[in-house]
């Protein structure tokens, strides 16, 4: 079984909740427990935030929710400015970092996360969660 849901959203904060609601709906449909649904919703929200913050002049970004029998994979793709993954480091709470927390949260909450990005080329975040 493989089904996928595709969306294209304007790169604007007011539409992120559409992606989050879709994430909740799909995760619920696949039988994830409530705590995991919250985790997936937040990870999707953070990936959308990332797409918007790095969107540059690009007016939209894309999401794909891929339902497999034992796994939910979500891809968030923007064609914005991208960023240098080498320069990214895990924020230290003691330093009270205000940025960089988003990726850290995504990596903490999802089972696997891949990030394809380079400066000027946009960003693709592929994350998945296994159905227990």
């Amino acid at each position, binding site marked *: 079984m493989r089904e996928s849901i595709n969306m294209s959203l304007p790169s604007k*904060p007011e539409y992120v909740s559409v992606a989050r609601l879709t994430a909740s709906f799909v995760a619920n449909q696949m039988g994830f427990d409530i705590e995991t649904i*919250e985790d997936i919703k937040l990870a999707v929200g*953070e990936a959308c935030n990332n797409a*918007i913050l790095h969107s540059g002049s690009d007016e939209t970004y894309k999401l794909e929710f891929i339902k497999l029998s034992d796994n939910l994979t979500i891809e968030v793709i923007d064609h914005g400015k991208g960023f240098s993954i080498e320069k990214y480091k895990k924020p230290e709470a003691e330093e009270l970092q205000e940025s960089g927390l988003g990726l*850290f949260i995504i990596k903490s909450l999802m089972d696997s996360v891949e990030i394809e990005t380079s400066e000027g080329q946009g960003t693709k975040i592929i994350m998945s969660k296994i159905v227990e």
Partner: protein
Amino acid sequence: MSLRLNTNYNESEKSWEVELIGEVDINSKAALKDELIQLNDKRQSDFVFKCENLEYIDSTGLGVLISFYKNVKINNNTVHFEKLKPSILKIFTLTGLDRIFSIRN
């Protein structure tokens, strides 16, 4: 759902009480930031965030709270969080903010 705020100055506790209702995210963070700065300009004191009805917070919302905390700390005031839902407390713990903010559940 978006964010709704109830604010009140508690004279006996000498602190601002801010009830967060709904979602603190990329869409509502600017409104929250403006409101907090206004309150702190009106009267510099401790802040108590009532989170019983806070349903969602993301890294941009946490960013607003972190920078606001830095402002408040300059005047030797503190920031407290009350009654966080388990899903929200999890994010505070994950990001290490539970060691920076005072959390009363």
